[in-house]
């Protein structure tokens, strides 16, 4: 699975996710990557999110939208909301993986509870960063 989240110069947010699914999958199995609210979500008032990991957990947890809701209804910061969802709620349910998110102020969060995650980020005027492990 691959994904991207962005904030542009006009203050708009967007999110995108794409995947080949699970190896050896059958029966038309679809994970979270194509499900708006589970694997992908964007709302200028809160954040843009793209998830990766075992799709079934992210579907059940409506993970991408959950991050936005925690910001909107509980006033959490992006970092707090993303951490709560990945490192507490998802981890408690056995869901491993991670997400990338950008907030409406340009802040970035990349929590993951698996051993590794291919990820990268850049902000205007800053050097681009690429990382795989913690």
């Amino acid at each position: 699975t691959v994904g991207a989240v962005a904030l542009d110069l006009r203050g708009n947010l967007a999110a995108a996710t794409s995947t080949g699914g699970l190896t050896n999958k059958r029966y038309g199995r679809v994970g979270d990557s194509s499900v708006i609210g589970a694997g992908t979500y964007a709302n200028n008032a809160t954040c843009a999110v793209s998830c990766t990991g075992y799709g079934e957990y992210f579907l059940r947890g409506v993970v991408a939208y959950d991050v936005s809701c925690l910001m909107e209804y509980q006033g959490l910061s992006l970092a707090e909301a993303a951490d709560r969802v990945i490192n507490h709620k998802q981890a408690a349910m056995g869901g491993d993986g991670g997400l990338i998110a950008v907030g409406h102020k340009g802040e970035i969060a990349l929590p993951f509870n698996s051993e590794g995650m291919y990820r990268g980020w850049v902000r205007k005027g800053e050097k681009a960063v690429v990382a795989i492990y913690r």
Partner: protein
Amino acid sequence: MSTYSLAIHGGAGTILRSEMTEEQEASHRRALQQALAAGEQALAAGGSALTAVETAVKSLEDCEYFNAGRGSVFTHDGRNEMDASIMCGATLNAGAVAMVEGVKNPISLSRMVMERSDHVFLCGPGAQEFARDLEVPILEPDYFFSDFRYQQLEEARAKNRVQLDHSDKFG
């Protein structure tokens, strides 16, 4: 708003350090840097966040290292079934496709669903028909083939399990 931000991912899971040679790790990093640079170029030029995320994801779909587009894993019967979605934070409009085959960039097809249909989510043969109607090229299966992915399929079949693309976790 006088700033921009962009983040990308190429998948999560138990990417064991022992599973990757230094050269493999370096080539994965290069591919991530290329996708980041492509997306940032769009933003720096005043492009929309929507175009930036589509551009970055297309770059990752075109790389065989990641489980999407050309690097997609195989289904039980040896096909590549791809899923994708995109969402605009300004309009809350969204587009998604699932179970498409032969489409080079499923993320671009998702954006077409969002911008050139009245729907949000198209899947399977219908999504394939939509792609053909919009004259999206459908590529031959060998564009998506890689020995590495096919070995993963053989391994998973032998254990009769499904698995993430770069881990030994099984469903």
